[in-house]
């Protein structure tokens, strides 16, 4: 069963970072504001509204197309899966540069990109229902 996550109401964000903390807890069992697949972007000053960015699960993702190693593969339902063994050793990280939304970052410790596994914890911990999280229709 696959789930879809959509950032539906970024304008509701109050900057509580609950999504971001939940994401790093889930993916790495740590709290690390840099190793996440969901981002609270501060637009230069806290006077400006926050923006929330997460993977859009593109049908033909540029990140996968940019990967010379074939480490990122497109999933039939959209989005990508990563084979870390193929990724290791890359120094260019074209995948990160390829995502124009900026939804992909590098896990600077493991030197591989952080991939959303659609656990839905960002949606679960958001107090303002910014995310839509639902089962995908087959």
């Amino acid at each position, binding site marked *: 069963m696959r789930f879809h996550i959509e950032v539906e109401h970024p304008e509701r964000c*109050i*900057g*509580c*970072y*609950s999504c971001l*903390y939940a994401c*790093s*807890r*889930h993916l*790495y*069992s*740590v*709290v*690390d*504001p*840099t*190793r996440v697949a969901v981002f*609270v*972007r*501060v*637009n*230069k*000053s*806290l*006077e400006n*509204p926050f923006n929330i960015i997460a993977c859009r699960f593109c049908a033909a993702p540029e990140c996968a197309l940019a990967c010379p190693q074939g480490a990122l593969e497109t999933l039939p339902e959209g989005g990508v899966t990563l084979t870390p063994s193929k990724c290791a050793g890359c120094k260019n990280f074209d995948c990160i540069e390829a995502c124009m939304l*900026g939804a992909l*970052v590098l896990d*600077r410790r493991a030197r591989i990109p952080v991939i959303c596994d659609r656990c839905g914890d960002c949606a679960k*911990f958001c*107090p*303002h229902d910014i995310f839509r999280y639902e089962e995908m229709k087959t």
Partner: protein
Amino acid sequence: MSSRLRRVLHIDLAEKESRVDERPELFDTYLGGAGVASKLLEEECPPRVDPFSPESPVIFAVGPFTGLLPSMVKTVAMFKSPLTGNLGESHCGGHFATALRFAGFGALVVKGAADGPSLVLIEDSEVRVKAASSLWGLSPLQVEKSLRSADQEGMESVASIGIAGENGVYYSGLIADRYHHFGRLGLGAVMGAKKLKAIRIHGTGEVALERPTEFKEFYEQIHRRIVQTEEMRKYHDLGTPINVMMLNELGALPTKNFTQPRFERAEGISGERFLETLLERKISCPGCPVGCIHLGGLRTSFSPEHELGRREAFEELELVPYNYEPIFALGSNLEIGDASSVLRLIAQCERLGMDAIMTGSVLAWLTEAVEKGLIPRQEIGELEPRWGDAPTYSKIMENIALTKNQFYKRLALGTAAAAEKYGGKDFAVSIGKNSPAGYATGYGFVVGTLVGARHSHLSNMGYSIDQKAVKSNLSLEQIVEKIADEEDWLYVYYSLVGCYFARGVYDEETIVKALALIGLPKAGGSLRGLGNEIFQRLYRFKVREGFNLGKEEIPKRMTEIETPYGRLDQGKLREMVQHYIRLRERQGLRLRREDEALTELLSPTAKT
């Protein structure tokens, strides 16, 4: 990286140098926040130091749950207060705590003085002290906009003083991340004396979870309690301004320099009115899903010739944080009855970087002193303060921040110091030289503020004990005992460092469980003992610096205002303080300066 705090960053502004001390035992014993800061203050602050001298330290500390648990979001600052001459302690939300922790530090100690305007930049382990003349004179809001990165991974915080801090106003603060304040007791002036305009911290580290599965479950329980139960509803709906109408109905809303407990125009400055007419946005501290920071919109037309039909299209919009205390201090206490005028005065405090509660207290005293003819006409000049006259108050505030002449320099020292010079001590509403918060609730509030280590309503919840005491007929002794108990316990909570608003969620059992989950097992009883130890250390500091609780006076005005108990009796207030002194002395604390003086005299190292 370990899940526990251990590193203290020391910065010397004069030498432009820094070092890191590994102090795991310090954090394991005193948790963090107030506990760790109290120990560092003891180590770093020389006795009887001039708060504005280079040797006077500024200390910041975060807690073991910073970044880990909901609402554990604050940073504790400790320093020697120029306002009271003893303990300076102020707590602030925003991004400061998480940025410092993810940069790898549990505490930060700043000493020395720079030779010109400076900025401290902390990028994880890389620390720089940079000359920053271009920032001097800017408002903390301009500094935030100028220094924050466009888009950066990790957590970033920008904290800055305003011109009030640059000019040594005794109640100037440090504003972090635009909307959060180390507001009380003059941290801004201490930084200003060091020529330290701002601190920017960027942290990209991580905090490991020792028992991840259990921790995640625990986190979820706390998160649910905060988001889904009634416990914290008041903070995310109307916010603390809900108190305006509540206290007005109770007859405990200080009005017109604490002469009345009710304000005729309370509705005009109520939380409801702010919400309906001014609220634009709400924001949170990172790690707290509540969103208690209410931002009101202040609209100002900047160019009359552009007003072509649609005036609002040519207005600048300024977002100003509001909550109950500034609304009382700059609203009811100055007889200002409309929300937008109050918001304008709050905005002025933000721009200048001044504590709103003390600013309101000084203005209220000044208005009454002028009415009573205590201030020579030539000193007041053009700006005659009148109840309800917000524009004049705003100009006076600016003159205070600029310390424009001898008169405003005196006002910049606080209410007690102003009354010392001009008279009017009876109505100088100042307790322990700090200005009390907005609760004319009675004995618990007055005594709690006086005996509290930092003379704050958040020291020991005296105002809240009052509301229970009136209902359940607590004796005055019982109130005193509750005050002492609360303060000990809150020093545990302030070591963690939790937000005061979430104190109900983190009861003793919850805290014991949470500490075990990060590998810091403590028994409930030992925690209370620790709270008492921290309190005692802070009081020893106060007494050492000259504070004498037995000799502190409670201004007459506090006994003239009607409270839910009726008028307070000066004799009973004194008895309560004496009861408190005996209670604390039984716990082994020396509160009398005579003892200290004698010890000093007999000590071979005594200064002559």
